[in-house]
């Protein structure tokens, strides 16, 4: 194989070609290699103030229309509807709404349901304040043999989907599916199984994925199958046989060919994957749900990818159960939510091999997802983990909360009670700007958002 590191010379050549056209203007377009914590590197980013937060919400029987729905919240502090729900879009049934992901042009958002296996494609560019359902893929399980479309990750012109389970036994063995942006299946790939060359037994499980394009690697993690994630949590933890069926591995793949290269032992269901976006960094972090640890995957001195157990989470509850994580753009700070005690922990990741917890705050009786703005100054939390895993009774608090983060403490800016609003269980969040001209990296530095335009559009939606 040849080394693909001659980008600079080509870039310089291109630059020289255009040199006389841009010299002295001091205004250049931006490349895209970072995110609002977890988006695909192929997706344009919102570098400034986000206007909207979409919340993929699980329907609850007897609450409102009972359907899963996409909830749109105005989050621009200059809007008079700041912190208010401005649109809801029911998808017509209840199928365990879970995660979402943008297409590479950020014009559409795909959202999955882990039980019905439906995939909903929303148009979020024609009128971002009022998304429109434009397509529903109903044959995902039939066509792929996989169950539980979980992670949606943009590739150029395509969507890479990580599933959780399979149609044969509803266990944890699963795979990846590639669709084109039009919603047609392109190809499926099984997760690796069996004994790998490094002696590790690959379990074939899947959960999250993330690509580091500069290294041409894809990293995947592992959770559990439909049999477990649809089981009542109280019943599950008392079932020793069921508890054996959780993923204990992560895998690194060639991102171009989607062929696995190496599998690591990472015991206890490694979940969300976040690559450091800091230039020169080549590491990712994850949290293991059942063992309550933070792991870092990075290259060693011999350029060999390795997995390192770098920290153990401590909580007031007997089990930490870390769920979502969010890494700052500079790779120096990590939010870690621990579901059972409803606390968000902040970890100093200046040295990723020796991270330290420096701050924590109770968010709610339970907390699952966390999303931060690109500059890290705004942090959003939601509370639902899975329909059958959320707490019961008064502890089943379902909220969207937004905080301002000054590097020292979280200060609450707004909170929406999703049960009081008769919406359902608040799960995954994605940001959007109303003015789409903000979404392109070529424009990121050029102009500020037209606040008046945004407010006017938001007002129209509210009416």
């Amino acid at each position, binding site marked *: 194989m040849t080394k693909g590191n001659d*980008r600079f010379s080509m870039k310089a050549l291109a630059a020289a*070609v*255009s040199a006389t056209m*841009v010299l002295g*203007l001091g205004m250049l377009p931006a490349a895209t290699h970072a995110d609002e914590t977890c988006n695909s590197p192929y997706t344009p980013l919102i570098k400034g103030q986000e206007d909207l937060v979409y919340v993929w919400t699980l329907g609850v029987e007897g609450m409102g229309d009972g359907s899963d729905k996409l909830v749109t919240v105005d989050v621009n502090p200059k809007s008079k509807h700041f912190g208010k729900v401005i649109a809801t879009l029911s998808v017509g049934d209840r199928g365990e709404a879970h995660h979402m992901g943008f297409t590479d042009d950020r014009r559409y958002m795909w959202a999955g349901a882990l039980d019905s296996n439906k995939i909903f494609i929303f148009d979020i560019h024609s009128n971002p304040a009022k998304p429109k359902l434009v397509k529903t893929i109903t044959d995902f399980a039939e066509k792929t043999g996989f169950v539980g479309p979980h992670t949606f990750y943009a590739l150029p012109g395509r969507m890479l989907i990580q599933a959780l389970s399979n149609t044969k036994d509803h266990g944890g063995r699963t795979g990846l599916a590639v669709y084109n942006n039009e919603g047609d299946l392109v190809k499926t790939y099984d997760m690796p199984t069996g004994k790998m060359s490094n002696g590790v037994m690959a379990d074939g499980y899947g959960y999250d994925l993330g690509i580091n394009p500069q*290294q041409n690697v894809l990293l995947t993690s592992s959770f559990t199958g439909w049999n477990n994630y649809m089981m009542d949590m109280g019943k599950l933890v008392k079932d020793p046989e069921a508890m054996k069926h959780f993923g204990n591995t992560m895998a690194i793949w060639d991102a171009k060919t989607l062929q696995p290269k190496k599998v690591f032992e990472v015991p206890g269901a490694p979940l969300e994957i976040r690559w450091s976006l800091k230039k020169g960094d080549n590491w990712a972090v994850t949290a293991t749900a059942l063992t309550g640890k933070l792991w870092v995957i990075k290259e060693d001195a011999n350029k060999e990818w390795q997995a390192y157990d770098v920290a153990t989470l401590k909580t007031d509850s007997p089990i930490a159960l870390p769920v979502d994580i969010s890494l700052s753009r500079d790779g120096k700070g990590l939010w870690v939510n621990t579901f059972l005690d409803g606390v968000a922990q902040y970890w100093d990741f200046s040295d990723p091999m020796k991270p330290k917890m420096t701050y924590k705050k109770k968010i709610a009786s339970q907390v699952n997802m966390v999303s931060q703005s690109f500059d890290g100054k705004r942090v959003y939390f939601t509370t639902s983990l899975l329909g059958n895993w959320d707490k019961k009774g008064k502890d089943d608090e379902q909220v969207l909360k937004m905080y301002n983060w000054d590097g020292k403490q979280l200060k609450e800016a707004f909170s929406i009670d999703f049960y009081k609003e008769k919406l359902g269980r608040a799960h995954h969040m994605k940001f959007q700007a109303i003015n789409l001209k903000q979404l392109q990296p070529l424009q990121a530095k*050029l102009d500020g958002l037209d606040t008046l*335009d945004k407010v006017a559009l938001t007002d129209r939606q509210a009416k």
Partner: protein
Amino acid sequence: MSYLSANIVIRALPPPSRGWGFPISLLSLLISLSAGWALSSAHAADVPIKDPDSNGELVFNYDINLPGTYTLNRIKRAADGKVLDTDGKARALTDFFGGDKLTLLSFIYSSCADPNGCPYAYAVFHQIKSRLEREQPQLANKLRLVSLSFDPERDTPAMLKLYAGDNVTAAHGVQWDFLTTASLRELIPILDAYRQDVYIDLDPKTGKSVGTMSHVLKVFLIDRDKYVREIYTASYLNPDVAYNDILTLLLEDGARLK
């Protein structure tokens, strides 16, 4: 803000406006190209190429898969559209796909001043063309490069012929076609089908175009059956990867490498 379709978005630029206008841009480009690509480092150093965080340039650091050791999936059928060649003749876009050739397609406009956009695509195309002709000359006639303008107002067939220079008339080696459209009416459906964003820069005071546009670079590799087999975008267009992808598809068609 969209006045044409979802694909054309008007945006206002803060002063000073960018770009020196088409004639100067074209002249600059031609002067640069005529220098045989032997450009001094001083020129490059004069241009502050930076990523959005001002951390410098991306550098790919991985081993590239050898041709024929992997497969490229059929992503979708390559969309058609009405285009004009440099002689002003009306053609179907898909006339430039298939047959016995692979196609590498990109969208450009001749006055583009974005080093991450058209000039970079141009440089990548030029490198791939030169490398294939040098290393695998027996396969040079199995690849076609297509540069399609999204500026029909200024990129007339005559202008594109000037922009293309010797590339379009070369009798041997890799074929390179430069195309445009008669108007936005023909262009927009093509941009929509390939989901190629284009932004028109406006003067914030007058609301009129300042003569420049922006886009996120996309390049499409299309096989002999007119299927898109790979899409390269923005910062991650690695010419060595694209070259090996081309060889991989040629091997799939039974070609032999030197």
